[in-house]
């Protein structure tokens, strides 16, 4: 049997190999630890501890890039003095290009400054706040799939640091931080969605419990579809003490939660005011006073009519709202009446007009969501097109549904940009 071949390895090479094995172990440990949590704060602390240990540094900090403000914000700073982190997090932000971290963020390149005293880019305010003395600094950009995430800084590292190793670590940090930020955002989105669901349910409770109302010869039906789950359209039917029925259609400026909250105020004010008067003009006038000086210039456009369910006589007042349509005797009339401005903007009077419905007459009250709908190529449907459609389908029983389909078909199935409401009144059908 021959002797086993022997390989001689110099002490230097062996030391290098041991170092590589240790580095690999550190990287493996690190990827295990950083993949163990999606909690942003917890993750950042772990990352900082590891960076500080690997680089045997006096202190470490991570600044996160805020896309909204285009600034770098201290997320965490770690050194022997425990209070440092909170101090910086509250008080120090850097512009892009400002200080060492700002330079790294702008240029997306790492920077090694052995002596900060001789580098003009160094921004000393953090040291002044913390009492820490920065002598040397290594700063590396944290770049994720979506671009810059932030900057990692190691302060006063030991002399024979391994830059390659630190950059490898930073790549891992970037991925982990990005994942946890995505996670944080998705939790926030889910929370917002739930809030919107609740707001939507509350808002619907302000509309009549049933979209159909019948009294004597009058039948009212309504359709309301919100654009962004909660919207600013409103309709209501109110039985008045004198025997008439008040019918309101309205559109609050804006969309979303703010419009919905305003709509809730409009709705409760209207329900109260409507029972105090049998004049639509006076009702709009009072509503105008109660909504005067609304925040952010918010307002309500609307039509309010009071119908005598025994005779078909109705009084109507308009506040900056699109005309209603009167389907009678085979014709469609566009009822563009003298009107006041939207409610809630300026003191004004609301003229009243009086009419009488004949057997089989229909009135269509609508909001601009019906005709402002946009096609995929950016064209708007327009009021005239809606009038033409109604003329062509005025004898259809399900005219409201057909009109909704018409608007939807025009939009090509795109997301609804505005709320859509149609209220139909039928007499003696």
């Amino acid at each position: 049997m021959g002797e086993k071949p022997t390989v001689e390895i110099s002490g230097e090479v062996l030391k290098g190999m041991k170092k590589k094995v240790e580095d690999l172990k550190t990287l493996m440990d690190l990827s295990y630890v950083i993949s163990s949590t999606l909690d942003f704060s917890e993750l950042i602390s772990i990352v900082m501890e590891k960076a500080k240990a690997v680089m045997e540094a006096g202190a470490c900090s991570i600044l996160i890039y805020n896309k909204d403000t285009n600034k770098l914000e201290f997320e965490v700073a770690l050194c022997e003095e425990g209070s440092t982190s909170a101090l910086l997090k509250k008080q120090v932000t850097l512009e892009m290009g400002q200080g060492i971290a700002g330079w790294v963020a702008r240029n997306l390149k790492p920077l090694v400054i052995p002596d900060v005293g001789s580098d003009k880019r160094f921004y000393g305010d953090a040291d002044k706040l913390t009492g820490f003395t920065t002598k040397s600094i290594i700063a590396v950009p944290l770049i994720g799939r979506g671009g810059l995430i932030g900057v990692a800084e190691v302060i006063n590292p030991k002399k024979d640091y391994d830059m390659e190793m630190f950059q490898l670590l930073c790549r891992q940090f970037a991925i982990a931080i990005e994942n946890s930020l995505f996670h944080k955002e998705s939790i926030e989105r889910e929370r917002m969605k739930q809030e919107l669901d609740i707001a939507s349910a509350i808002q619907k409770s302000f509309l009549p419990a049933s979209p159909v109302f019948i009294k004597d010869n009058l039948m009212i039906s309504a359709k309301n579809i919100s654009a962004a789950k909660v919207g600013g359209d409103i309709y209501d039917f109110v039985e008045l003490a004198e025997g008439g029925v008040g019918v309101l259609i309205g559109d609050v400026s804006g969309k979303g939660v703010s419009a919905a909250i305003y709509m809730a105020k409009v709705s409760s004010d209207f329900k109260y005011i409507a029972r105090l008067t049998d004049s639509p003009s006076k009702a709009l006038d009072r509503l105008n006073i109660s909504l005067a000086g609304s925040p952010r210039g918010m307002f309500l456009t609307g039509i309010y009519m009071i119908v005598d369910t025994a005779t078909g006589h109705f009084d109507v007042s308009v506040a900056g709202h699109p005309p209603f349509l009167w389907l009678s005797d085979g014709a469609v009339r566009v009822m563009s009446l003298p009107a006041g401005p939207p409610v809630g903007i300026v003191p004004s009077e609301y003229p009243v007009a009086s009419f009488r419905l004949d057997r089989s007459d229909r009135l269509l009250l609508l909001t601009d969501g019906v005709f402002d709908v946009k096609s995929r190529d950016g064209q708007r449907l327009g009021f005239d097109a809606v009038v033409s459609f109604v003329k062509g389908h005025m004898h259809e029983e399900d005219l409201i549904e057909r009109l909704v389909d018409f608007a939807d078909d025009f939009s090509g199935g795109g997301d609804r940009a505005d709320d859509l409401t149609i209220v139909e009144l039928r007499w003696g059908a």
Partner: protein
Amino acid sequence: MKIDITEHNGAKVFSLSGDIDLYSSPVLRKELIFFIGKKVPLLLVDFRDVSYIDSSGIATLVEGLRGMMSHGGKLKLFGIPERIVEIFAFSKLDKVFDICGSLDDAVED
């Protein structure tokens, strides 16, 4: 939406173009509030290149009007194009805003 802000005979002129809607009106609001803060006496809004305005855009202008009036300033609109005349007609905005035909009319009034 795009906003160009220029000066004309001591008045600030906001030339708007594109759609003034829920998404673009916050930018307009920021600019209006800035100049209201400076108490400019006359603010003119040029509508000639506006393609569409929704109720959020109108509300922003209402807020701007109130802000201007609070220090005795004036806000006027001019050059309302044919394509959005219907929106102004339905909303009866002529009862709210001082609406002029041209820049010269707006300055002279």
